[in-house]
C-alpha cells in the first residue's frame, strides 16, 4: 500500500521517554567502548575499523532515537566532513612523512628522526597513530552515509 509523504510523517511516533532515556544512558558507554577498541587494538581484537564503526553506530543510534537534526547538533555536518578528511590525511600523511624522511613508504621506524625513541617502539606507535586516523575516517563516513541514505540527501527528517 502506497501512502503519501504527509501520511508517513504523521505516522512517526512522538517522543518516547523510555527510548530516549535508554539511548541517552547507552551512548556514552558505546563511545567509551569504541575508544577502547581503537586504543587496545595492539593487545586484543580490534583496531581502527572496528572501533570507528562502534563510534559511528553511537551517533547513528542518536539519530534513530532523537531524530536526524538532533544528531547533527551532536556531530555537525562540517565537523563530520573535516574529521573524515583529517582521518584519511593522518594515514596518508604519516605514510608520506616516512618516505620524505628518507625511509620506505609506511616504514614508521624512520620517525625516530622526529622523536628519538627506539625504532621498534616507533613501529608500535606508528601503527597506533594510523589506527586513530582509520577510526576517525570510518566513524565519520559511516555517519555521513547514514545521514544521506536516511534522508535522501536533505539531512532534515531521517528515518
Amino acid at each position, binding site marked *: 500500500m502506497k501512502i503519501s509523504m504527509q501520511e508517513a510523517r504523521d505516522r512517526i511516533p512522538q517522543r518516547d521517554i523510555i527510548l530516549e532515556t535508554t539511548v541517552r544512558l547507552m551512548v556514552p558507554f558505546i563511545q567509551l567502548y569504541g575508544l577502547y577498541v581503537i586504543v587496545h587494538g*595492539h593487545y586484543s581484537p580490534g583496531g581502527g575499523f572496528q572501533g570507528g564503526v562502534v563510534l559511528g553506530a553511537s551517533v547513528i543510534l542518536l539519530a534513530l532515537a532523537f531524530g536526524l537534526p538532533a544528531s547533527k547538533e551532536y556531530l555537525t555536518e562540517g565537523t563530520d566532513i573535516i574529521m*573524515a578528511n583529517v582521518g584519511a590525511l593522518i*594515514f596518508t600523511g604519516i605514510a608520506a612523512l616516512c618516505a620524505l624522511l628518507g625511509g620506505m613508504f*609506511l616504514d614508521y621506524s624512520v620517525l625516530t628522526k622526529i622523536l628519538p625513541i627506539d625504532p621498534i617502539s616507533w*613501529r*608500535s606507535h*606508528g601503527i597506533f597513530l*594510523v589506527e586513530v586516523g582509520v577510526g576517525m575516517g570510518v566513524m565519520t*563516513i559511516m555517519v555521513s552515509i547514514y545521514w*544521506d541514505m536516511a534522508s535522501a540527501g536533505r539531512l532534515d527528517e531521517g528515518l
Partner: protein
Amino acid sequence: MKPLALLATLITGALLLYGTADFAAWGDPASPPNRNISVRYVEEAVKETHVPNIVTAVLGDYRGYDTMFELVVIYSAGMAVMGILRRREDQ
C-alpha cells in the same frame, strides 16, 4: 534484462566456486601459504613491531599499504554518496 542479470550472476558464482577447488587445503601446514611468508610473521612480528597482536602488526605495518587504501576506499565511498545524494534546500 533481469533474466540476463541472473544468468550472469549464476555463471560468475559458478566460476568462483569452481576456482575454490584449487585452494590449498584448510589448515594444511605444508600448503604454500603456510610455508612462505606467514611463518616469518608469526616468528618475527613481536620482535619487529612490539605489537603482541599479530593481526594488528600485519594490518598496520607489513600490510600497511593495503590498509591505507582500504581507508581511501571507504573515504571515496562516503564522498561519492555525499556527492550524489546530498542536496541543499534551495536546489
